[in-house]
């Protein structure tokens, strides 16, 4: 393990994260999504964006295990991947799905609430991507962590976005909900209210 998890693996990990993109683009060019590539690619890019959001949430629980501690090295990269695939999803929607038809996009915006959940997730991920540099980290100090907790909100947006637009096959929505909700529950201790209850409980336990 220790040998594999060396700096040397970095290029391979980078390639790994671009594989879904390579796969999607080559499938598109090979005509695999024919005759309605917009629909297929929109679903796929959305699923990959969701997978990377899940991956972001997975990192710190996994890093708690000693032998996997190195994964936190890829935090920034996994987060940027989630950002990247969410932007890809947005572009696919605008260009390949709606054909840049203004009336289509506008009517979706006016009437489809799930779009906003998705848009909010993209906005959050963009903000986190912009503030992901070391410089920004330094400049923001303590606030950096606070701001980057917005990824939890983004993950809730993903769940809402998925449920709002499922047709009858709810498998994907169920799986992502289970993953995201349980990963959020692991972080219950970060919620202020829960924190204060926990603190009181501990204090009373000590008093005895």
């Amino acid at each position, binding site marked *: 393990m220790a040998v594999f998890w060396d700096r040397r693996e970095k290029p391979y990990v980078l390639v790994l994260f671009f594989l879904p993109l390579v796969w999607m683009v080559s499938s598109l060019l090979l005509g695999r999504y024919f*005759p309605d*590539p917009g629909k297929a690619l929109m679903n796929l890019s959305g699923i990959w964006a969701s997978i990377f959001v899940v991956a972001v949430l997975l990192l710190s629980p996994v890093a708690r295990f000693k032998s996997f501690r190195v994964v936190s090295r890829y935090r920034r990269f996994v987060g940027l991947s989630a950002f990247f695939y969410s932007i890809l999803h947005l572009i696919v929607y605008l*260009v*390949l799905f709606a*054909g840049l038809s203004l009336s289509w996009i506008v009517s979706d915006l006016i009437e489809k609430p*799930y779009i906003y959940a998705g848009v909010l997730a993209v906005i959050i991920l963009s903000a986190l991507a912009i503030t992901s540099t070391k410089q920004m980290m330094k400049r923001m100090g303590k606030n950096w962590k606070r701001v980057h907790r917005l990824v939890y909100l983004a993950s809730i947006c993903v769940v809402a976005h998925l449920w709002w637009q499922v047709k009858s*096959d709810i498998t994907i929505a169920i799986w992502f909900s289970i993953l995201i909700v349980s990963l959020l529950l692991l972080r219950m201790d970060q919620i202020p209210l829960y924190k204060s209850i926990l603190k009181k409980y501990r204090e009373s336990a000590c008093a005895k």
Partner: protein
Amino acid sequence: PSFQNIIETPYGRDDKVSPYDVATSYNNFYEFGYGKGDPKEQSSQLKTQPWTISVEGEAAKTGVFDLDDIIKESMLEERIYRLRCVEAWSMVIPWVGVSLASVLKRFEPTSKAKYVYFETLFDPEQMPGQRSGSLDWPYREGLRIDEAMNPLAMLAVGMYGSVLPNQNGAPVRLVLPWKYGFKSIKSIVKIRFVETMPETTWSLLAPNEYGFYANVNPNVDHPRWSQKQERRLPGGVLFPNVVETKMFNGYEKEVASLYSGMDLKRFY
């Protein structure tokens, strides 16, 4: 096998027909799976001959009829219709069949026959998608009797000059070009004349999303997506072929009178 001596009709002469491969490899037929490619891949087990249809309810002539006796090859005509899926994609397909009215009238529906109910074959052995409870099987559809008798309504046994491929609803299906595709029920085994509005599969599953009428209507959006436009398939590699959706899918002249005075926002 292709049909001989199909009667030509003026329907759809101006539309560009979708390629055969597209129309036969990309469609919804949940009896064979969720994916758009599943129907073609999973439907080879469907046995379409012999095929009988049970005619029931408020009609003088009821019973079990052989499909070959209901639709004679000599009566077949070709009509090119636009097909608008509720999922906002569309195709143009040359169907082979007869007018639905010509068939229904022969069963002599009584004055109590206010609606017609249709049912798809239920046989999980032949239709693997029915092994899961995704929909409440069998697939059910219905029409008001005057809709069913409208000359546009068609009972199809073929497309592109040949018999229907299994994945497109063999051996016999409805084609209702002014309604969303899911109303055009496939692989029909039952026709029942009834007095009250029958339950239909999609409106049972999600009544706020799919109504009984399901007329193509750009002014009434699906709760989860707009119906103002559609992607006419096949699209290009990068750019879809976006078309403005027309009222009643462009068949307003033929069917609008069926719904005069009705609030189509309520009866969607």
